[in-house]
């Protein structure tokens, strides 16, 4: 009897989980994405794309471009920084220290691990030098190690800033240097309790005086209690000279990459939205980080669409929520953002943003797993996103998962960090 009941309940649960297929007719990108109704299921959709190798193949790039592996055998490469002399820094590592709160956290953790690399994070910054721009670095060296999950990086005036998962630190550094022996100085501590979303993204302001740091929420939707969300899901503006900080944006669930739009000097972010509301909710987005704006989390998504899971609800907060500028699609997990500068690649890729998408787990039809290009006109998104680097997913298996992207205007190359292949891909115009 129990066996029959078990079989029946397992069937019912499977039906419950699969009963919400995506509607391919919905357009989930751009300024006005189609938003379906909330569709919570008893068992959240968990579609892990198991890792597989490239077997000599490479990602797919548009006609007129070539792609090569710029560096391999890295230890979970995340974000990159191109220095004024052309050297490339790669931050490697993995953070987070949130303990499981419920049986679900234990089980989901085991499942999600299947889609990630088995390599241990490097907790270091690797320097790559390809001065002759032939796509093969002449020099590869570990610039600094023993860091605590480094992610965002910025350089100006003899200072290399690194956003670790618990602190913003500064190293005395001159481009050309290939090692750092001096110990870092802490500019300011960053919120680090639990670190459910641990990545600390960073961008240097256009005038070079401020650092913007993105700090992700400590939960999907407040299921660890709202007390641990103090100064989470925010963007800080930190004064380089004094370390003083100001919260410029709130309710911005997980701002995983920040970059300065070159024509306006304004700061933009890609943001990962909440899970478990269905395969097509809520869209991850690209937005200008407006001073004083509240982007809804946890109370609402895509502006003022109420999330019923948050109690007590706050209608007055929902009413004040700002709608993001540009949707990227649901669950794509945008983790990389960089703008083309100085004419970019020319043609259709002159003015706009490259966006790295790590790829989904919370939908049966995988999304993301690519790098897209969003054209900009007069400092604003203008037109739908265009696939720029694809082929990370093949036959339901993940060959790679894009993270950070970096455009080097001097060499006219785009670099893409891939934390599954543990490589950096280099995309350049075919000569």
């Amino acid at each position, binding site marked *: *009897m*129990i066996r029959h009941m078990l079989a029946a*309940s397992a069937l019912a649960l499977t039906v419950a989980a699969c009963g919400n297929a995506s509607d391919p007719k919905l357009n989930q990108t751009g300024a006005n994405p189609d938003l379906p109704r909330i569709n919570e299921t008893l068992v959240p959709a968990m579609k892990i794309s198991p890792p597989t190798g490239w077997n000599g193949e490479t990602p797919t790039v548009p006609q007129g471009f070539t792609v090569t592996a710029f560096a391999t055998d890295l230890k979970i490469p995340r974000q990159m920084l191109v220095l004024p002399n052309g050297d490339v820094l790669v931050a490697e590592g993995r953070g987070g220290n949130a303990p499981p709160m419920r*049986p*679900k956290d234990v089980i989901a953790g085991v499942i999600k691990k299947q889609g990630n690399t088995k390599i241990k994070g490097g907790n270091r910054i690797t320097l790559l030098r390809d001065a002759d721009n032939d796509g093969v670095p002449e020099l590869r060296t570990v610039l600094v190690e023993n860091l605590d999950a480094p992610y965002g990086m910025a350089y100006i005036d003899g200072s290399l800033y690194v956003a670790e998962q618990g602190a913003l630190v500064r190293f005395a550094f001159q481009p050309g240097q290939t090692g750092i022996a001096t110990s870092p100085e802490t500019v300011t501590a960053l919120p680090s309790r639990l670190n459910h979303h641990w990545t600390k993204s960073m961008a240097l302001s256009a005038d070079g005086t401020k650092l913007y740091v993105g700090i992700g929420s400590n939960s999907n939707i*407040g299921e660890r209690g709202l007390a641990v969300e103090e100064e989470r899901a925010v963007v800080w503006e930190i004064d380089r000279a004094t370390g003083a900080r100001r919260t410029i944006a709130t309710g911005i669930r997980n701002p995983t990459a920040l970059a300065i739009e070159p024509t306006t000097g304004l700061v933009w972010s890609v943001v990962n939205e909440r899970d*478990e509301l269905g395969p097509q909710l809520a869209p991850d987005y690209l937005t200008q980080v407006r001073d004083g704006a509240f982007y809804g989390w*946890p109370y609402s998504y895509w502006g003022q669409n109420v999330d019923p*899971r948050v109690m007590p609800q706050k209608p007055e907060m929902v009413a004040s929520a700002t709608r993001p500028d540009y949707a990227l699609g649901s669950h794509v997990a945008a983790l990389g953002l960089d703008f083309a500068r100085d004419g970019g690649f020319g043609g259709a890729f002159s003015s706009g943003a490259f966006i790295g998408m790590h790829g989904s787990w919370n939908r049966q039809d995988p999304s993301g797993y690519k790098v897209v290009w969003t054209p900009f006109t007069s400092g604003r998104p203008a037109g739908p996103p265009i696939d720029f680097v694809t082929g990370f997913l093949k036959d339901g298996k993940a060959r790679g998962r894009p993270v950070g992207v970096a455009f080097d205007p001097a060499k006219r190359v785009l670099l893409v960090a891939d934390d599954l292949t543990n490589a950096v891909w280099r995309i350049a115009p075919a000569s």
Partner: protein
Amino acid sequence: MTRHGITGAVIRPLHGILLAFPIALFTFALFTDIAYLNTAEIQWTNFSAWLITGALVFGGVAGVFSIVDLVLSLRREGSRRAILHVFALALAWVLGLINAFKHSQDAWSSVGAFGLILSILCTILVMVAGWTAYADREIVR
């Protein structure tokens, strides 16, 4: 020791101890669900999730005992009560499993009206299972 001797000295007490877990844990999960719905304090629903999981683990083992007992006692008097016992425990277990998934949803969705109803049903059913397991035990022997 005779078969009945072993049953009386070891199996029955062990079954009783195992059965005590789902009775207590499903009941307390109902209390912590009510506490969560009244306070929105997230720790209460965390408690519920673990209590329900514990009820499923121990209730599952107790259920195996119950089924074996039912099979062995089918030809004897009182087997109708044993059938009711197994049915109530099995239904509590299946509803408890659904409730465990319900409690894996995030924040308010982890309980809500549906989770509360499931917790009430699990509590009632596991009480019935406990009652039918022990009522008139001596006569059976």
